[in-house]
């Protein structure tokens, strides 16, 4: 079973979807400063989050100028909680439970994501039918170096990273109006060391000049061909933070797209660290009490 793929779901949300930022001017900023601000905000604003997400994946086609699913999408609904921890709060702990589809309901996964490249990330899955918690290993010890699909969707770990800003060089190409918003267009190119680990030879980012959220990204391969595109939408202010409630990633090679829709999202939730232990995977009563406390805070 490929359920291990959900292990990075929450970090994805933190890294890709929630490039949050305080409102304010961006005068005289260069590309690196913009990226640092996005990254810092992503970490600072996602220290404690609780969410319910819907992940839809389908093959897409273009009709009447619109991108649409041409096959019935596969839909998963997921409840998750996460917080940052460790030195400088650069590590994270997250726990995810599937609400839908019914056949996978209750499946849970616990992940510890470490910022240090010297420390392997850790992931545990509870196999209820076997009555045991199982440690699962990914295809790479560095989750950022090898793209891991989320639930078989188009979202991968490579699209979720925060930090590691030194792995890239940045160039501010332009300031444009995109989707009615003033946006900085930034070119991000991996360093030679990073280039050996990534599929993307170049990424163009459209960054909201006031909200510091990513509006759009285009990823290119080594031949200069665009292979993936990310679009965010339904931007709302939640708890004083600008949040894109919808994130869509299109694989232009396979014609598949995935949309992550935040049904509920709460920041600054007080999360008992005990929730982020293996006990939560096996002790359902304990877990439900913990989640009920989070749901109560979310109301």
């Amino acid at each position, binding site marked *: 079973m490929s359920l291990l793929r959900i292990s990075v779901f929450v970090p994805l949300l933190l890294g890709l979807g929630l490039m949050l930022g305080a409102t304010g001017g961006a005068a005289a900023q260069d590309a690196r400063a913009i990226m640092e601000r996005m990254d810092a905000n992503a970490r600072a604003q996602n220290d404690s989050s609780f969410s319910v997400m819907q992940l839809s994946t389908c093959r897409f086609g273009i009709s009447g100028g619109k991108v649409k699913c041409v096959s019935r999408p596969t839909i998963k609904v997921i409840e998750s909680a996460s917080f940052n921890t460790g030195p400088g709060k650069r590590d994270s702990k997250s726990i995810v439970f599937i609400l839908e589809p019914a056949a996978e309901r209750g499946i849970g996964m616990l992940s510890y994501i470490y910022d240090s490249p010297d420390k392997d990330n850790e992931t545990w899955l509870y196999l209820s039918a076997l009555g045991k918690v199982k440690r699962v290993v990914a295809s790479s010890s560095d989750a950022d170096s090898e793209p891991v699909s989320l639930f078989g969707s188009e979202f991968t770990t490579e699209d979720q990273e925060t930090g590691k800003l030194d792995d890239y060089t940045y160039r501010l190409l332009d300031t444009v109006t995109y989707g009615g918003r003033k946006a900085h267009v930034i070119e991000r190119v991996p360093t030679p060391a990073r280039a050996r680990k990534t599929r993307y030879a170049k990424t163009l980012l459209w960054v909201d000049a006031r909200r510091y959220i990513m509006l759009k990204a285009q990823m290119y391969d080594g031949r200069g061909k665009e292979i993936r595109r990310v679009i965010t939408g339904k931007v709302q202010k939640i708890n004083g933070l600008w949040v894109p409630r919808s994130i869509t990633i299109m694989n232009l090679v396979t014609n598949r797209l995935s949309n992550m829709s935040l049904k509920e999202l709460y920041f600054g939730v007080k999360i008992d660290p005990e929730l982020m232990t293996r006990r939560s995977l096996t*002790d359902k009563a304990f877990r439900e009490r913990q989640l009920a406390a989070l749901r109560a805070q979310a109301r």
Partner: protein
Amino acid sequence: MRVFAAATAIAAVLAAGAAGAQEFELDLQFDEEIAFEEVPEAEPASGMQVSTVLSFSALRSPGSNSDTWSLALKFANSHDLGALGLLDWSASLLFPDLAAAAPAEFSLDRLMLQNSAGDLSWQLGKYRIGWGEIEGIAVLDVLNPALSLATVGNDSAQLPGQWFASAEYFAGALTVSGFVGPDPQVEHLLPAAPARLPPEFGVKADIPFEGGQASLYAARLVPQAGVVNLATMTSSARPYRLVGLSAHRAFGPVLLEFDLALKSGLERAGATGLVLHDRLDAAVGAEIALSNTAQLSASVSARRWLRQDQPYFDFGPGGAVPAGRTTSSYLLGVSNSFPNNDLNLSLNLGGALDGSLTAAVLSADYSLSDRLRLSARASAMRADPAGLFGPFDGTRSLGLEAEFFF
């Protein structure tokens, strides 16, 4: 291997799609609002889960051939009983042979009342308890009804449970658990004596360390399979004692696993009756994440009797055969899932290291939609005709299944 051939074929289809994709002009104002208005918002399901499974199985063996159509209705639900805790259950109603109009069989597959308070958690009901690191290898994975190669590739929810009362105490990183099994399940090839079995009980301590975990075990258990007394031609299952150790450690994409158990007071068949001996069981295994979607698993296990001072015998479908002091077996598995988890393929190969038994199982699961899942499983077995599993030599089977979730 066929699994890789299938993967290659699918990859070719995807590549063809990719070529077409490049023809699209995607420099559009993407309107995902419209695109995703067509995706319904899924609501968390509540109430009973119901599915129906239509199955076809064909068995070809030297002694018999059979083709069977069966139908099963499967039910599962969860209930919050307030102060009593949470109750999970699953059951099935099986019509085992549609052609013969065989009577329906009801099975309670799982029933678990679970609750916790403070650092203590407890469960009561019919479920499985996982001991040991390596599934399907009977070193420490000996609490539940025995699994066979026939169950490899099965939906894990279909694995049989057993009646238990168990509890866990969470002391920081350390977890101590214990169980009582009042109704041990034993497979017997011949009539059993005694018919009534004493309860099983055991304790386990999990001690995590960076990148891994070690566990210690002690138990009084009843064997999963009876031992045939050649003097009386009856099957016996008496309690034995177990002390064990297991550990796992992750090294990047590799998970190494280890199980070790000393089993004291095991019954063994001599020429004139049963004797009690001790045995050391050990297994090592590895799980390797080959890619984002592919996994390889491999394990080797061995059993060695600590005494061997007379002729001993094992009793199988073909009768009694001489038993060696040491036996060893292996299990290899490779699995891969394809885009969106719609298709999962797995190939498992297992048997005895001396070549006296080899079995292979190829499984495929395909989700046509969230509601309809198709699966197929083919297996083949080769065995030493003079060995314990000789009657199974040349056995082949095919199983097809369609499950619809209401």
